[in-house]
């Protein structure tokens, strides 16, 4: 009966393999992106020109900020659907507080330089309110932010009576329309935000706590993490990033469009999840999310340069999302929830 102990069941080899895969999962989309660049270059001579690539980056800059915010919110185990409305409302309200009613404003007459700080403040307020309703009142995050999606867009319509605001102070347009060192400021801002985000989520205790909370918030609490405070902060940061996206978009369009941001939330989720962020929380990296954004941007640009009619682009986009999901599913070998 005293048999020699049989060797442990799972052979070490596959385990290590799994480990290695997991570590490089953030990079999963890099080959896809390279492939897309090659395809683009083959199909169109102008694809790899700096102008075209900058155009892709610029077009994706606003989306990428929303994805950054949403990715952090998803990692911490919540979601915020209202981001897309914040993109429109915050600039609209800030501008309306400044311009006279003849230009569609509210006749409050704040000084023009207040536009930017006001706008950011509105972002803080929206994120804070979402956090209050979710954490303190105890409402479902999905539903609260769904309600806010409607409410905030409605507020924008109510304030502007459905008009786009065109008398936007120059200072407010600056960020979205200027160029620094040959690159649009919007691109720089994204780069800085992502770099900061990646650093914080990787090297700061506060950042790591997002993963702990998203993975198991009870365990995080028991480990001494102030869960509510972190979640609240993340929701506010997400809203502020949406506001920045809104500021950039306002600069890019030269006005606050009545529909600014409408429908973006679908793309935000698509990019984040394709980039490896789990809807269940606690998983994924910001680098992955960024590559999701880039991938979708490149696909769209290739289709557009190919002269694929806009009517087919949407279908291709949907197909790409599903395809990407299937590829991810088989690459990780895990069923998704």
């Amino acid at each position: 009966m005293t048999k020699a102990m049989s060797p442990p069941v799972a052979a070490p080899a596959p385990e290590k393999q799994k480990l290695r895969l997991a570590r490089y999962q953030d990079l999963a989309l890099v080959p896809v992106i390279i492939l897309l660049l090659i395809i683009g270059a083959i199909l169109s001579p102008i694809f790899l020109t700096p102008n075209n690539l900058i155009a892709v980056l610029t077009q994706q800059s606003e989306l990428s900020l929303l994805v950054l915010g949403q990715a952090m919110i998803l990692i911490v185990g919540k979601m915020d659907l209202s981001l897309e409305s914040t993109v429109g409302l915050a600039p609209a309200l800030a501008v309306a507080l400044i311009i006279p009613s003849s230009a569609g404003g509210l006749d409050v007459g704040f000084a023009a330089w207040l536009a930017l700080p006001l706008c950011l403040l509105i972002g803080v307020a929206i994120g804070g309110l979402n956090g209050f309703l979710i954490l303190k009142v105890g409402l479902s995050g999905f539903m609260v932010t769904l309600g806010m999606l409607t409410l905030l867009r409605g507020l924008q319509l109510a304030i502007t009576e459905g008009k786009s605001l065109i008398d936007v102070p120059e200072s407010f347009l600056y960020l979205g329309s200027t160029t620094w060192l040959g690159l649009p400021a919007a691109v720089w801002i994204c780069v800085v935000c992502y770099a900061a985000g990646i650093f914080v989520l990787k090297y700061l205790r506060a950042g790591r706590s997002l993963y702990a909370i998203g993975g198991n918030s009870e365990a995080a609490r028991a480990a001494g993490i102030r869960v509510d405070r972190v979640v609240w902060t993340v929701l506010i940061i997400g809203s502020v990033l949406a506001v920045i996206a809104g500021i950039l978009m306002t600069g890019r369009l030269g006005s606050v469009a009545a529909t600014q941001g409408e429908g973006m939330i679908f793309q935000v989720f698509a990019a984040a999840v394709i980039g490896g962020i789990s809807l269940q929380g606690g998983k994924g990296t910001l680098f992955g999310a960024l590559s999701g954004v880039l991938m979708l941007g490149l696909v769209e640009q290739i289709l557009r340069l190919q002269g694929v009619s806009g009517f087919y682009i949407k279908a291709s986009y949907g197909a790409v999302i599903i395809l990407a999901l299937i590829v991810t599913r088989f690459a990780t070998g895990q069923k998704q929830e």
Partner: protein
Amino acid sequence: MTEYAAVARGVTKTFGRTLALDDVSIEIRAGESHALVGRNGAGKSTLVSILTGMQTPDAGEVSFFGEPAPPVADSSAWRRHVACVYQKSTVVPELSVAENLFINRQDLGGGLISWKKLRLQASELLETYDVAVNPESLVSTLTVEQRQLVEIARALSIGSRFVILDEPTAQLDGPAIERLFDRMRSLQDKGVTFLFISHHLQEVYEVCQTVTVYRDARHIVTAPVAEMSKPDLIEAMTGEAGGLNVPSGDDRPSSPEEVLTVSALSGDHFSDISLSARKGEVIGLAGSASSGKHEFAETVYGLRKPSAGTISVNGSVVRGGDVPAALKAGIGCVPRDRHHQGLVLDLSIAENATMSTAGAFVWPSAQRSAGSTAIASYDVKAAGPDQPVSDLSGGNQQKVVMARALAGDPSVLVLINPTAGVDVKSKESLLGVVDAQARRGKAAIVVSDELDDLRVCDRVLVLFHGQVVREFARGWRDQELISAIEGFAEEMDTAE
């Protein structure tokens, strides 16, 4: 000729590249209670899923009372042969007891569901098996014991004469376990066959006649319980000679220095409890599920807010209801349920182990080396510090929780069910850690339903309805402790 309630032969099952069962067999004689034991991950639950038709084996066959098992698709045929209370609860919490009892047969064969008839039948069924719950209650409002009884009643009501119980006692307290065993014995008298899985070996001796041991996916031995001594059993399970060797700690040096002082603490389900723990002292807390012992321990650690009283460590008062404050004051905790509160399963061993202690900056290399240290000091079986804890077996996961609790070198340890669901060998090493910490001058509070855990303590306090009703010094007898837990403390006192 003996009749077999269930026979599995040559069963092999792999999950991906994990071999969960390797050509194993089991023969369960009709009318007996057959124990299946083995360390965490030995393949017990996998065998259960094959015996109940939830999974198909890669190779091998199963038969019931001489008949080959039905095809996998025919789930109702399976249910006639075998009933099971799974390790994971299989009730639907938001449905009523009555509906859960008749789940997927609510129409009672009549096409349309008559809710009145269903309620009546449920009442009858519950009465038959002597389960005192309201058939209209939602299952989510039941206690663990009541829920498990509902599951057992349901299993038996389907009419199968063969019942599998996978770790049914893991979540029950002492009296509830006794009641369960009484029920098992009386059903066995009526001819029901049991396959019983547990990590508590003494339970095997209490209710079973035959025992089968699996180890590392293989069948090791099957023998009458009477012929297997406890050390033999443990040897079969672990492959190593020598029985369970839990340190009793009676030679621990004691010190007069008070580390933890709890004065007049009240909170959820307990009131006005005072106690103090000295350096090197291990205090046990025992009591039934409703005694308030968990709530008390969680309050000490800051997971719950006290309604009155103070907690102080080394003389300074700790803010109540604030885990970070407790950590800072030097309290470490193994929370009640590792899946719920202990671990973030998707994160690595290193990250889980350092979660409470990381500084503002997290250096991956430093974290990894802290993880490696934890793996070495707590004897965690793992591929490395980067491995997600979800990959570990239950016992090894529990060790990571312990590592996290001890990571900040706290002066007070609060350990709630530290060895729950853990196999004998792992239990030994975890209790060894507690003893070693005490020897290093830490104070510890161990809250547990398991007598083995309490043996390591210098004294044991028994809680009843939220108050300390008795205190036992080292050397208590099992029977007197159990009686005290059940609430007979005063009577015992007067009787003595």
